Structures are given as structure tokens and as C-alpha cells.
């Protein structure tokens, strides 16, 4: 459902929007509104175990591809949000578990392909 009262939007519907602190009160409501409007949400939390409810809830309500939960343990660490914003980590997950290094992911992908 497009956002009422807006003839056009700057960020196209269907795009991924990152919401940090997505398991909190404000973050979870923002995610819900984004999903309702037709965006996809990539949420971050310090602990994906305790935040699991958010993924279950939003995927149940808006579909499996609508929402994903990523762990950012320390948001003050250098480059804490880089892989989350870039989105390449998702590719790594789909092949063989989590890797945070873009180089490692690229190598894995090429290697797998050559095989």
C-alpha cells in the first residue's frame, strides 16, 4: 500500500531500507510502516537470537523475502554497517554460511563457479 498523500517517493517502493535498532519499540514500528508501504527491510540488532521474534513476525506478516535480520554487535566499530548496507553478505549466506569479508565472498563465489 503506497504511502497516502505522496504522489511520488524518492526511494522506489520495493527497495531495501536498512533499519538499525529494528527490534526496539521505535525501530520495529518503523519497519512495520516501511513493509506496509511496500519496502523491504533489512534490520540490524545487537543479538539475532533475542531478536528472532522480529524476523518471524515480519516474515509471517509480509512474506519471507520482505525482511531479514542482521547482527551488528558493536555499531561503534569501524565499518560496522558496511556489509549490511552493501548487501553482499546475503550472497555469501546463500552459498556457505556467513563471511564478513567481501574479498573472501568474492573468492568463494569464483571458486565455486569454476568447479
Amino acid at each position, binding site marked *: 500500500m503506497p504511502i497516502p498523500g505522496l504522489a511520488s517517493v524518492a526511494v522506489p517502493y520495493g527497495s*531495501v531500507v536498512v533499519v538499525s535498532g529494528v527490534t526496539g519499540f521505535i525501530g520495529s514500528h518503523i519497519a512495520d510502516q516501511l513493509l506496509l508501504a511496500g519496502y523491504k527491510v533489512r534490520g540490524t540488532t545487537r543479538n539475532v537470537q533475542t531478536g528472532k521474534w522480529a524476523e518471524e513476525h515480519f516474515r509471517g506478516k509480509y512474506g519471507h523475502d520482505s525482511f531479514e535480520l542482521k547482527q551488528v554487535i558493536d555499531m561503534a566499530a569501524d*565499518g560496522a554497517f558496511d556489509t549490511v548496507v552493501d548487501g553482499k553478505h546475503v*550472497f555469501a549466506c546463500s552459498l556457505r554460511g556467513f563471511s564478513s569479508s567481501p574479498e573472501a565472498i568474492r573468492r568463494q563465489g569464483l571458486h565455486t563457479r569454476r568447479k
Partner: protein
Amino acid sequence: MFLPVLYGASRAHRKQLGAKGFIHVANDMSKKASPDEAIRTAVQGALNALTASAKFGLIRFVYTSSSFAATQPKPGKPFTVTAKTYNEEAVERAHQPDPDGETIYSASKVAAEQAIWKWTEDNPSSMVVNTGMLRWRPVF
């Protein structure tokens, strides 16, 4: 045998995976941190979110700030808030002995917001940045 197919699909899919917007809400609400630590985490976290967004060409960045970044509530007392008003009271109190959690929170919101605006001045880009604030009721 299916791996090349998986790879191809993933690669095509990957193009859509980069985010287009970032709404930075995360904040340490545990009230366990010292004022310096709370402020450092808030500022560094916000700048990490902001720089990642600029680096990967996002269109919009929003920091969910707070009315407490602008001012302390002053019920019944008329006062003026402008775009340049910050909660200097809280910043000052945060650096005195034993500040309460609310004061530390307010000071960290002030510091993070100021850091975001300074960064946008120093690093012009086409990404539109805003710091929204939420209030539980109108000021008047």
C-alpha cells in the same frame, strides 16, 4: 551441479540487494554506560551508519533523533525552539558528577545529531540526510 545455477541466480539477485535508504534508530538504552562512553557509541554508531550509506550511494538517510536533542521539556513555560536549538542543559549536566540516564541519553542525541550535520557539511553528496524527532504530544 546446481552450484553454477545458484551462483548465477545469486549474482543477478545481488544487484538488488544494496540498500537505498537507511533509518538509524539504534541506541544504547541500557543506561549502563558512562556519559563519555554513551556519547562516543552514539556518535560513532551514527557516523558509521552515515558513511556506509554515502559510500554505497544510498538516496536517503534518516537519523531518528529526539525532542530531547532540541530541548528539555518545560511544561507551562513558553520558550522558543529553532532549527539551531540544542539541549545544551543536558550536555552540561552530563559532564557533572552522577548524571541520570535521561540526561546521558539527551546529551548523546545532541552529540550524534551535531556530528551528523557536521559530516554532511564536510562531505557534500547527493544523499539527502535528515534528523527526525519524535514527540509524544504537541509542544503547545
